[in-house]
């Protein structure tokens, strides 16, 4: 396993591969299907992100949904892969959105998406801008800060204290929304690997048939999730 330079979530890689070993030990059971083979994150070749951007995404999502504590983190669930694939796809290009000008990025947040950038362009411009802010503040790019500094930097970004300019001010909200999407979406989109996020909270995924359940009050639903492709966990 190669380490990503300065990348803080080595622990989560270890944790993920330990889980992989444990599951390999029970191959053949339903649970084994839950964690299909996927190249390790550090071997993943992004469809959209540049190497610098990819370092940032790995590090940032690992703080937004950390590996520590109960439940899987963004890294174990492969949220970075999800975001990469979304940005390479029609979402990144804002194909469905009305993107004609004139644009008024100075408008208040409650006026909705008013930057001229589509999501893919937003990430492309915001990551170096935010890294520059981190350099100025801490002397290092975001990915190589320690976790406490990363949390402080993300908080500053969230609050607007790390001001990247009007066209980029929607970046934090977009990154956070995409991170949660990747955590909870069906695994066929690249995140929620092994349906771990669904298992953690107790969401049965694509089962979508509960005819006997409305009147079973205050009783835990016993079945684990299935995915759209039919995997079980």
């Amino acid at each position, binding site marked *: 396993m190669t380490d990503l330079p300065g990348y803080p979530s080595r622990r989560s890689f270890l944790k993920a591969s330990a889980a992989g070993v444990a599951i390999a030990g029970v191959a053949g059971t339903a649970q084994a299907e839950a964690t299909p083979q996927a190249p390790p994150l550090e071997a993943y070749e992004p469809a959209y992100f540049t190497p610098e951007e990819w370092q940032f995404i790995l590090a940032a999502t690992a703080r937004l949904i950390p590996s520590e*504590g109960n*439940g899987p983190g963004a890294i174990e669930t492969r949220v970075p892969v999800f975001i990469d694939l979304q940005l390479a796809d029609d979402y990144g290009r804002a194909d*469905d959105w*009305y993107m*004609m000008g004139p644009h*008024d990025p100075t408008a208040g947040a409650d006026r*909705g998406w008013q930057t001229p950038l589509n999501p893919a362009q937003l990430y492309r411009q915001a990551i170096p801008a935010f890294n520059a802010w981190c350099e100025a503040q801490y002397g290092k790019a975001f990915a190589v800060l320690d976790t406490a500094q990363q949390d402080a930097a993300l908080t500053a970004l969230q609050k607007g204290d790390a001001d990247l300019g009007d066209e980029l001010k929607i970046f934090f909200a977009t990154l956070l929304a995409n991170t949660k999407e990747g955590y909870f*979406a069906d695994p066929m989109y690249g995140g929620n690997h092994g349906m771990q996020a669904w298992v953690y909270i107790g969401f049965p995924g694509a089962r*979508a048939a509960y005819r006997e359940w409305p009147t079973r009050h205050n009783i835990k639903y016993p079945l684990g999730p299935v995915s759209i492709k039919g995997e079980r966990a």
Partner: protein
Amino acid sequence: MARQEAKKDVVIVGLGWTGSIMGIELAQEGLEIVALERGRDQHTVPEFKYPNQIDELKYGVRFKNMQHPAQQTVTVRRNLDETALPYRNMGSFLPANGVGGAGTHWNGHTWRPQEVEFHLRSYIRDRWGEQIIPEDMTIADYPVSYAELEPFFTQFDKVAGISGYAGNLNGQIREGGNPFEAPRSEDYPMPPHPATYDSAKFGEAARALGYHPFTMPAGIASTAYTNPYGMQMGPCNFCGFCERYGCYQYSKASPQTAILDALKRYPNFSYRTHAEVLRVEKSADGKTATGVTYFDEATQEEVFQPADIVIMSSYQLNNVHLMLVSGIGQPYDPATGEGVTGKNYAYQITGGTTLFFKDEIFNPFVGHGANATVIDDFGMNQNDFGALGFIGGSYLFSGTFNGQPIRSMPLPTGTAAWGAAWKEGIGEWYGHSMTIATHGSVMSYRTHSLDLDPTYTDRHGRPLMRMTYDWNDNELNMEAYLTGQIEKFVDFLKPDAVARGHKLPGAHYDVRPYQSTHNTGGHIMSETPDTGVVNKFSQVWGMHNVFACGAGNFVQNTQYNPTGLVGALAYHTAHAIRTQYLSNPRPLV
């Protein structure tokens, strides 16, 4: 030069709920009908089939079942001084695209407004005096009464297949139903659904507090059912992918389950998809329409479709836009209050309080779009407007629609939005909460309106429609009052934690969070041609062969979800065309 198609008796613009109703009712008269739908064709199979539709990201978050702003959108400003900006991606409201319209991905809450809502201005005048109506509030009586519409409400209930229990059957109040509703001539076609845990807890609390709980009337089949057109439905299995999704198992009321297969059997009916109507064409004297011009996506050209009757059923926003770009009715000017087209745009005010119970299990994914226990004790006809200081009403309800985790992840106030504490929070609280929500009326105001935007255009070069809308004190005061009433439930149920999500005094319209697709007004009904766009039969004043369906007809919004009234008005219109207009085409008023 636009291509021209063979003339039809009737052209229908948009094949959603109202287009389908008008189609099948007029097809029974033997008329040659063509419906033009801008979106794709859609069927239960394959478009809505299991498991593909059970995809929160694609349909719940990326809105792939809906209108895409790249194709059509509006601009929004909150007041006349603000510069309107485009609604660039979907948020506050979610108009439909494709056969079946929003009828495919709605929730199914199916209501009849209260009797007083039809003659609201006179009701207020008689009871409190008109001086309690704020100066800029432009509410009026509907030109049609509940009694006139009752048979058509009943017809819509039977076609859509509504599950519920009548609280007022021919004037007799029945325990277990809504005692405050207007009298029904018949009970619902199907019995009410069972209550999920949250809904049952709310019902118990409501009873203990002296209110009158009942089950939400649902356009969701509770049993096997065959409707008057011979269409069959099967009971819902609480799949939890209802609102924003097509139903994979023939249970949700929709044009697909209730009308379309029966309609397609009429040889005199046909429909074309990927056919976006660009304008209604007028005759030389402007007194009738000659047909419509649409954009044929397949051939990338404009096509003229001549017809004797034009039915506008493209949803409220699109209908008003088409009227504005086609010169139907005098455009409304919010500065002067002159004109009619675009007048009295209104919406719905909603909010919710979430109650968290550490040790109780709610299984939030077990639900359907209209799953709820409701009380109407704070409805329009129960509120003393004079004493309360607002004009309006709301129902309160609780019941899970879905437990889809990207969107439906309520957490106690103060929980971090990310990081370790957020992750801890979702593990601790997912599935351990219930929400009590408001669903309130919004009155009409002089500035709340729709006109053409001076700056932004659509892909065909037409101006976008501009929406001017904000929250007024009247509605915010009502929401504050209701928030206080919900506190009685909080005190009674004693949750471990709470999160309150209500619009606060001074709140402004925020286009980002979903609120409702209950956009109303803009081509309102009126007693006289100078105050609205259509008469009581939804017939355009001064253009007698154009009929406009949908919530654009609403004089002001009611406290309920719109589709019960939208459906009843469509049947009322169809009946008038069949019995009065066809034999002698003319203005019916």
